[in-house]
């Protein structure tokens, strides 16, 4: 057991003195990761009840999710809701990323004083409790007959995603030497051209991760969707939430498994991107 006497810090602390910390940390990490994964085996259960481990295996909940256009016992057209969610999330990328990037570029180049005033306003969608944003939007949309519309959902989700885009792009621009653009312009390039040809390629990884985060923010958003989506345009998270309040439907386990795969995939991509950009 010699390894227990190995030094684990430069202050001569032995591994055996720190063993409790290693074990405790492992337990906490386990509790962080594993509970969400329980939905994966549940989703392959053949039983209507959520017993663990499942006695028999089947794909019936996936069939329910992918192929039931109208579930006999409920109002859930899961596939339609998924399509709405995907559409809204993709459109959110195209609204939030350009607007957020332009604002980040403008803010980085403006005076410190202006930045100090504008930045808190710009990240306010992140700071204000989301329930207030949701009921505020609901009121706003009622005036303009935008409740239950795709455009209303996209704008609402973009509002929440824009501060994240802003922060990501601003931190990328912080490490970028703006003089490169000046060089391009002194050689005759216009400002937009200098931005597109010189700056953009150098911050592209940040832009891609900002887009992915916009997508995921929209796809996972619940509260705004609860208030401003409905009718034919319910989102998947909204339908899931409403179903969860009423009963424990194992179809939700199948949907959850799909959502875990999507979000882990996006996480891996952004991690690889951030490694690439370093």
């Amino acid at each position: 057991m010699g390894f227990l006497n190995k030094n684990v810090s430069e202050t001569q602390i032995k591994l055996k003195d720190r063993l409790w910390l290693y074990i405790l940390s492992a337990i906490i990490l386990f509790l962080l990761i594993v509970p969400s994964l329980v939905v994966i085996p549940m989703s392959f259960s053949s039983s209507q009840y959520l017993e663990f481990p499942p006695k028999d295996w089947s794909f019936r909940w996936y069939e329910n999710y992918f192929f039931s256009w109208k579930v006999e016992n409920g109002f859930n057209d899961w596939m339609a809701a998924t399509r709405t969610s995907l559409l809204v999330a993709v459109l959110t990328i195209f609204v939030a990323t350009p607007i957020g990037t332009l604002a980040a570029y403008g803010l980085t180049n403006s005076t410190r004083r202006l930045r100090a005033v504008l930045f808190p306003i710009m990240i306010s969608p992140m700071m204000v409790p989301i329930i207030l944003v949701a009921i505020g939007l609901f009121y706003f949309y009622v005036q303009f007959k935008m409740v239950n519309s795709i455009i209303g959902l996209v704008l609402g989700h973009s509002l929440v995603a824009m501060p994240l885009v802003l922060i990501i792009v601003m931190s990328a621009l912080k490490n970028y030497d703006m003089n490169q653009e000046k060089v391009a312009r002194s050689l005759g390039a216009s400002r937009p051209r200098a931005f597109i040809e010189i700056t953009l390629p150098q911050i592209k990884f940040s832009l891609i991760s900002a887009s992915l985060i916009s997508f995921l923010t929209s796809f996972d958003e619940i509260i705004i969707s609860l208030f401003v989506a409905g009718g034919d345009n319910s989102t998947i998270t909204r339908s899931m939430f409403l179903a969860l309040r009423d009963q424990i439907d194992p179809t939700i386990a199948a949907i959850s498994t799909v959502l875990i795969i999507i979000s882990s995939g996006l996480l891996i991509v952004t991690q690889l991107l951030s490694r690439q950009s370093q």
Partner: protein
Amino acid sequence: MVELEQNLNQAALTQLARREHYTFFGLTLPYLVLVGAMIIIPIGWLFFLSFVGRDGSFSFENYERMINSKAYLRIFITTFKISILTTFFCALFGYPLAYFMSQISRKWANICMIGVLIPFWTSLLVRTYAWLVLLQKKGLVNSVAVDLGLLSEPIKFVHNTSGTLIGMVHIMLPFLILPLYANMRAIDPHCVKAASSLGATPTRAFWTVFFPLSIPGLLAGLLIVFVLCLGFYVTPAVLGGGKVIMAAMKISSNIELYFSWGAASALGVVLLVVTMLILLIASKLVSFDQFGQRS
């Protein structure tokens, strides 16, 4: 002549610089218009509504009802109780993990970081559902506890305060760990080394040197978690099973069930003011840049 030319150049340059500033400000306009139209105006309107009484005139009745009503008092107590307990448990579990991650090599810390980020990226609803599955009467937690003899019979963990608390701690933990870990990584390890070279035991070096230096990160994490808990809706709604009613749920039911915009707005204004005050304190302690990874 030369002087005049210089002055002219100076004036032209100043003008160019000013035009440049207007251009940059212009680039932020689409963003500002969206935030103005969809956050500031609607919330300003909620603020206005909170002062409109049932008869349509200016009054404080929405706030008075909140102060005088036992139901609202109970909601405030529940909201603060759940938020404080969640924050406490997050610190209890988050601090050791963040400390551990700050002590190991960066390579291993990054691997652990993925463990913190996975739940951060997983849909809130999925995690809440997972806990609903795990904690129910026939769930895994109960069957393991009964098999091990920890419980004589299954307990209902969900649809009550304990279930809400377990789910919320799990969801909030990354929000505490991220700023705290960033802070701990920035602490100069030489400080602790210096303390131990002067004869401090590891325990003493930790408490007198490391811990005080980690307080800004800890406080920032605590405040963020607390604020997020105050406005939380989904997890208490699902895991609380209607028995745990927090402020955000009351706001929602005021509108969805009772169409009472005045009452909802007044509660919303209180929630907003408390949140903003806490965030103001937090912003003095930490920059919000590190939350770019995922909100």
